[in-house]
């Protein structure tokens, strides 16, 4: 009985935290989008606009619940909840820091990939049940996109599984270290490529630009979103922003050694009726910091790139991602077999990969600086205008 009560309490707390995070993310995205477009984002509601998402949610709650004529009522109503559920279930096994996970699943990453497929059903049902030809087109395209891109995602994940030897996300994190050259991404060149394959495929799974054909004005109409208004619309969007957190968290855990600090600074929280809960704050904050960098990169990509066309999207998946995915899986198999851990070759590869990546980052910072100099712009460092 106690166990059930704790499960419900933790589930509610977790849902609350994720909803608040997704809400705040919408405001942060709009502020970042504004600064990238030489304007200020929303900054009037609350301090620096931090409460804007509550205002938006309240406004949507007040709207009339319009259900168009001749839709299938049950399917129309259930579609947003399926998408919502699909996204929120994926966050269960992800370790936010050392002991901050909902459940230590042994099939961790496999479970994540499986539950991420729920959203496909949600989009298809939403598109079909809307009794609208544009929504149908949008839903079909969305389904094709998401199902196709699950394969490169899985292939990139297989690379990590081969290197870690386990599906458990905790063990994957523990197998990496705290320093950059111990992260999986720099362990071998195939994992480096796997990071990009995973990142791009996860963007396509999450319907983000440059692959946001189903949602952002599916050629002038809003795709499966067209007939939804008010709180149902918000549920779709909440799921999309929560998905950003999922992608960021997964990338951090799989490739960047999320939350691993090399030591543990534990705090024990005594709870009635069960063993004390271990909380590790610094690792959690470090994990959140890394996740937020990837969320920032995803937001940044959205406001830079145009959209690809649906057949080009399929081209990218089946002609580029999948063959390269197979190549890296085979390469990783050979690497893991021939190059033992902590040998000379392994160490040299790691240092070289880290150096190359650092050089690319520094070159990028130099390009940013050069852009500012070319356009003779004044540098203004205050993010709050």
């Amino acid at each position, binding site marked *: 009985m106690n166990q059930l009560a704790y499960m419900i309490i933790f589930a509610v707390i977790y849902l609350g935290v994720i909803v608040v995070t997704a809400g705040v993310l919408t405001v942060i995205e709009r502020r*970042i989008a504004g600064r*990238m477009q030489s304007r200020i984002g929303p900054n009037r509601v609350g301090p620096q606009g931090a409460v804007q998402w509550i205002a938006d949610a309240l406004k949507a709650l007040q709207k009339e619940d319009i259900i168009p004529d001749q839709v299938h009522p049950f399917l129309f109503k259930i579609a947003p909840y399926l998408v919502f559920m699909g996204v929120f279930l994926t966050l269960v096994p992800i370790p936010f820091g050392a002991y901050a996970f909902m459940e230590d699943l042994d099939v961790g990453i496999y479970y994540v990939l499986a539950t991420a497929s729920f959203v496909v059903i949600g989009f298809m049902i939403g598109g079909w049940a809307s009794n609208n030809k544009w929504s149908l087109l949008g839903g079909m395209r969305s389904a094709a996109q998401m199902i196709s891109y699950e394969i490169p995602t899985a292939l990139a994940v297989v690379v990590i599984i081969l290197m870690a030897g386990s599906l458990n996300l905790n063990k994957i994190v523990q197998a990496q270290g705290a320093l950059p050259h111990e992260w999986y991404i720099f362990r071998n060149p195939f994992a480096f490529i796997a990071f990009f394959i995973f990142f791009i495929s996860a963007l396509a799974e999450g319907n983000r630009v440059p692959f946001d054909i189903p949602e952002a004005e599916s050629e002038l109409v809003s795709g499966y979103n067209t007939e939804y208004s008010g709180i149902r619309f918000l549920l779709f969007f909440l799921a999309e922003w929560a998905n950003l957190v999922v992608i960021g968290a997964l990338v951090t855990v799989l490739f960047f050694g999320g939350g691993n600090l090399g030591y543990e600074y534990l705090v024990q929280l005594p709870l009635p009726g069960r063993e004390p809960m271990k909380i590790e704050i610094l690792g959690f904050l470090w994990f959140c910091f890394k996740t937020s960098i990837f969320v920032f990169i995803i937001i940044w990509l959205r406001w830079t*790139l145009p959209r690809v066309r649906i057949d080009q999207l399929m081209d990218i998946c089946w002609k580029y991602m999948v063959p390269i995915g197979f190549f890296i899986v085979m390469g990783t198999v050979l690497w893991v077999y021939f190059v033992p851990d902590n040998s000379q070759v392994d160490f040299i590869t790691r240092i070289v990969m880290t150096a190359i990546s650092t050089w690319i980052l520094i070159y*990028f910072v130099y*390009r*940013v600086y050069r852009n*500012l100099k070319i356009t003779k712009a004044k540098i203004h460092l205050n993010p709050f205008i």
Partner: protein
Amino acid sequence: MITYFKNIWDTAATVFEGMAITLSYMFQKPITVQYPDRLKEPVPHTLPTGYRGRLALDVDLCTACALCQKACPIDVIDMKGMRTEGKKGLTLIYFNIYHGKCMYCNLCVEACPAEDEESHQTALYFKKDFEGVALKSSDLIEQFIPQEQAKALFKEATDFAEKRAKEKKQAESAPKPEAGA
């Protein structure tokens, strides 16, 4: 085969460059101003001369020639000038501008001949005021001569017109002087 890798390299390079440009914008000051409460100086001070804000009339300078009314293509100006006693030329009875229709085309201001001697501002001129919000569309009609004064002037002008018509009739029906007498 080569185009395969060239495509990948091209995409990566151009995406990299695009991302560098957008990030560089985050380090620049936004050009938007937060109107109306967080401005450095009020906007009308920054507007150039010749800016076409809302129309206004300097009632003392106006000669009631109605050239502006004729020039306006959409009948924004409604005015009337009549003769009154003791004043040379026409007197302005009423002058209404319907701001809701005005398209700031400048044809009326150009047509106005009356000009202030020092500032060379015409009788009908554009202010630098651009904030014109009203709750009802009838609030957008601006009457430059208030209603009561317009009624009084109209009465005065019609009285004068009647008086002149009567005098003219008397002059016509009076016995004409005989030719040669």
